[in-house]
């Protein structure tokens, strides 16, 4: 029901209509931006590293230019020979291989920068489901890094040495390492149960499936106590 419909359908005192209409608008809005369920808190990478790199290059160029022009003004030989730099473009033609290569490099760097700027990147904050009652206007998210950390900790059930967690869009892939050549047959299930329970407590907005891979020492040729570990049980 839109705000206009509410207004049309009801003939009560104006202020009440206003209130209902705004509540309806809020509701519509709330539904509007719930692509999965619940409002979404997300945070994407800030691109700090490329920004710092590019800014540092620009700063270095600026320092060189200032330094050279001051040297020129003082009548010294500048570090960057302005006269030669100014004369170069007039002497060079685009057909020269060196110029072509430089142009290609320039375009490539530009393309990389554009891609870095445009591609949103994996979210660093993942949305949590919003509880059903609309009274709580608290939308929540969890940082990706901490989610991985807590899930790998949850996966370390008895019999598991260490667990690695990989987050895909709709899948959590747990790689659990066990030191036992003959691990309990249900170890995979135990890990999956533990991780699923932790996920249920956290309550992600987007449901994920849990896949568990078990890494354990080679079973055959037991005399060879080599520490090489191979994946024996496939994912589920």
């Amino acid at each position: 029901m839109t705000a206009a419909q509410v207004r049309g359908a009801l003939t009560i005192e104006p202020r009440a209509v206003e209130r209902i209409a705004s509540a309806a608008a809020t509701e519509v809005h709330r539904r509007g931006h719930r692509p999965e369920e619940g409002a979404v808190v997300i945070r994407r990478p800030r691109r700090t590293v490329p920004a710092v790199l590019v800014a540092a290059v620009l700063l270095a160029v600026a320092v060189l230019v200032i330094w050279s022009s001051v040297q020129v003004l003082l009548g010294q030989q500048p570090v960057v020979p302005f006269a030669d730099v100014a004369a170069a473009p007039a002497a060079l033609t685009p057909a020269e291989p060196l110029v072509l290569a430089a142009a290609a490099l320039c375009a490539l760097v530009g393309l990389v920068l554009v891609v870095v700027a445009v591609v949103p990147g994996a979210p660093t904050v993942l949305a949590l489901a919003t509880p059903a009652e609309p009274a709580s206007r608290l939308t929540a998210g969890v940082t990706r890094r901490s989610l991985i950390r807590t899930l790998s900790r949850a996966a370390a059930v008895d019999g598991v040495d260490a667990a690695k967690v990989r987050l895909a869009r709709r899948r959590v892939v747990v790689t659990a390492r066990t030191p036992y050549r003959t691990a309990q047959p249900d170890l995979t299930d135990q890990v999956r149960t533990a991780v699923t329970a932790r996920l249920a407590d956290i309550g992600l907005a987007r449901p994920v499936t849990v896949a568990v891979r078990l890494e354990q020492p080679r079973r055959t040729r037991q005399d060879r106590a080599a520490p090489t570990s191979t994946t024996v049980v496939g994912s589920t």
Partner: protein
Amino acid sequence: MSTVRAPNPPSRLNRSLLAALGLLLLAAGAAVLAVGLGLLPGVGPDTALLPSLPTTAGWGAYAAAAAGTLLGLLALRWLLAQAHRRPPESIWQLDGSSTTPGSTALPTSAAATAIARDVSAYRGVDTATATLAGARSAPTVHLDVAVETHASVADLRDRITEEALPQLRTALQVDRLPAQLVLRLDAHEGTRRVR
């Protein structure tokens, strides 16, 4: 209203500047490549890159110094912006009522600090920071909370919704205060499970 995004400066600045510089480099490189490979009709690949400049007079060095200084300051500004990861604080004027005349200037950071202190005292919370963003008419609060191992996420959210946010709404004299919470789970290292 806008999409619910956790505040994330200087992400937007970085993206715009990187895109602008990238497009500039891409255009320049592509143009020279096109001319050099003879793809552009009308411009032969043997024309000079630029017409030869008249030898610059005395002001050339001054102009270069000025341009360099401007570029350098802008680059520095961009670099320093990386350190500011919070939205800037603002100051609200809270009007008094008929019983309590006068008005109060409230820096939003003070209100944010108060709720952050409340939340960080909750059980299972390691640290909490808060930012109050937006104008007085449409404020939003962003909470960053680090949670200890095995604290219940649901309980924490309930407590924030039922205690901290109503308090803040009362303090700020606002009816609606949408809130965004960003959680860091398992903040405490060192309690690794030993088999």
